[in-house]
């Protein structure tokens, strides 16, 4: 939902970043206001996932220029855990497995950490169990997932649901979902998209990184951005995604060049 006067949640200006000495982001600019849903599309290697990792502070990536404000505050001085506490959430394309750590225990630790950072009450294991089971219904998840090790042996779709479950628990200001639709069958896609739609509201914002228009049939974006060569080449409304689906990406670069 686009509202002209809504507060700016994310302000990225001329952002450049590199990994292993190679510059991947070459002048990103993006403004996201509360209540908006953005989709970032673009060919492989255009820098979409790098952008997500740079924002959340992955240690392999180095910012070389530019600024990024989350809720008006610069984030690059903060370690990744403090960015998360400040309201940034990254939904991973490939969530890592953590053998031996029960999902329930992990979810409660992250929930209580974020609650604590906001000066809110933490939940004991019993209270949390009730709370998380309620949230799991939203994603049609079996409570058995609470007892399993974090992501261990989860199917691709189960991992992605577990990501959105964490988004539901942590209620971030800005959720950056990196290819959340990849590896999902059509039912899982519907469930995950339904979850995101339920969680999106006037006070937060969602960024979807995706290759496919398919996801955008379920989550209607306010803006669609096309990324290539480490920057945003073109921004449009939801119809741009349909156009990309039928025409591919090449015409965008050609149009910008001419």
């Amino acid at each position, binding site marked *: 939902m686009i509202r002209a006067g809504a507060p700016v949640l994310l302000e990225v200006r001329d952002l450049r970043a590199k990994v292993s000495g190679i510059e991947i982001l070459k002048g990103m600019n993006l403004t996201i206001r509360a209540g908006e849903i953005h989709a970032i599309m673009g060919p492989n290697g255009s820098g979409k996932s790098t952008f997500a990792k740079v924002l*959340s*502070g*992955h*240690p*392999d990536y180095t910012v070389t220029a530019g600024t990024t404000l989350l809720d008006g505050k610069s984030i690059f001085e903060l*370690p*990744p*855990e*403090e960015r*998360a*506490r400040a309201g940034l*959430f*990254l939904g*991973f394309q490939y*969530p*890592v497995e*953590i*053998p*031996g*750590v*029960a999902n329930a*225990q*992990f979810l409660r*630790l*992250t929930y209580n*950490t*974020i609650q604590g*950072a906001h000066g809110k009450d933490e939940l004991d294991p019993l209270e949390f169990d009730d709370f998380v089971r309620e949230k799991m219904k939203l994603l049609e998840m079996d409570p058995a997932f609470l007892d399993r*090790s974090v992501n261990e042996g989860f199917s691709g779709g189960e991992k992605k649901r577990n990501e959105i479950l*964490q988004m539901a628990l*942590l209620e971030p200001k800005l959720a950056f979902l990196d290819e959340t639709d990849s590896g999902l069958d059509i039912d899982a896609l519907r469930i995950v998209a339904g979850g995101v739609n339920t969680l999106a509201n006037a006070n937060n914002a969602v960024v979807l990184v995706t290759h496919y228009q398919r996801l955008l049939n379920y989550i209607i974006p306010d803006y669609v951005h096309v990324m290539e060569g480490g920057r945003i080449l073109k921004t449009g409304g939801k119809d741009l995604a349909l156009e990309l689906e039928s025409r591919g990406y090449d015409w965008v670069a050609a149009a910008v060049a001419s």
Partner: protein
Amino acid sequence: MSSALQNLIDQPYKHGFHTDIASDVVAKGLSEAVIRTISAKKGEPEWLLAFRLEAYRHWLTMTEPAWPNVHYPKIDFQDISYYSAPKTKKKLASMNEVDPELLRTFEKLGVPMHEQKALAGVAVDVIFDSVSVTTTYKHKLAEVGVIFCSFSEAVKEHPDLVRKYLGTVVPTTDNFYAALNSAVFTDGSFCYIPKGVRCPMELSTYFRINTQESGQFERTLIIAEDSSHVSYLEGCTAPQFDTNQLHAAVVELVALDNAEIKYSTVQNWYAGDANGVGGIYNFVTKRGLCRGVNSKISWTQVETGSAITWKYPSCILQGDNSTGEFYSVALTNHKQQADTGTKMIHLGRNTRSRIVSKGISAGHSSNSYRGLVQVGPRAEGARNYSQCDSMLIGDRSAAHTFPYIRAQNSSAKIEHEATTSKIGEDQLFYFASRGIDAEQAVSMIINGFVKDVFTQLPMEFAVEASKLLGLKLEGSVG
């Protein structure tokens, strides 16, 4: 490896202080004369001196084992002092007579020596260098017939029991270090649980090496008579020196019909510094004999210290339907080396054994599991289950597994499972992206990893062990 992860595993050793206390130290070197001196100092009977000399003579014919996956310069056994004792005027009648400097040392280590301050329900025998300093709750235990005292005292007060069982589980000729220990051991703990008695409290021995140039050679003997039950705990620390000290202990357990012995260790000897200078060489022989039917011996160890650990707490399952268990967490960091595991020797019918080993390797360390499961021809229906998991922290540490299985009875069922995992940057970043810092993340991963072993520890010890792993792996994150 990131600096955050590095800082996390570079925690200083908190027990590295040295107590300045007058000691009675025998000059360095080993000979029959030295053994006679030790035996005389302790006022031992002739049979014990003969036991020592027989062991010494055999030791002279033996060579150090070369098969463990550990590397260190050759030890000069003539450059070690084999006896060191804090000087005391006379035998202590009560805690009030213990040297206040010693009391302060153990208070600093968190070991309760005053009964009124002690953990409820834990009796403690305190070994400082070569001798036992004190044993708490001795009288209370005596009321139910449990004998818990220093080894030296047992030799004097209960010579028949000691003579009957000493060397029956670990013979003097067993191996190089067991032979050395049998020749020169100075003190240790002795427990005897009479028939049908369930020991009313946890028994615990706390070992402290203090002197720089002495070795520690203690001897522990635990006997559980028919249908008795005992839980025994052992803790160890040492000061920080830039030389290596040798610790070669022998522990023997005997469980008779329907008896159960649970033996738990939290080992935190000084491990040497980050460059591998100093630290204890921990070459220990621990073995339990399930002599009676339906008997059970369960070893639980949390090994975090020592420059080198060479240790295989084992069970000989002689009685029919007897059970042996081995639960182990071994953590190595910096340049530490550990080669540890167990032997389960199935001799009786329907004997059962269970092995759960969790190795954690950080820094430049090397951590090996070595285990033997042997089923003898008579051991009809023997069963074993082994699980060996390794965890690597960072990318410069090593984990090895050497399982040996020898089955001579076709009805044996032996299962072995093994996994290797790694705490990687990606896991830490995943936690971080959820607001959780590296310290908490590592702690959660490690605690999850060792859970199956820690649940076997008595409550007080589980808390201590958890804190110890924390100290070893947590800290300021850069």
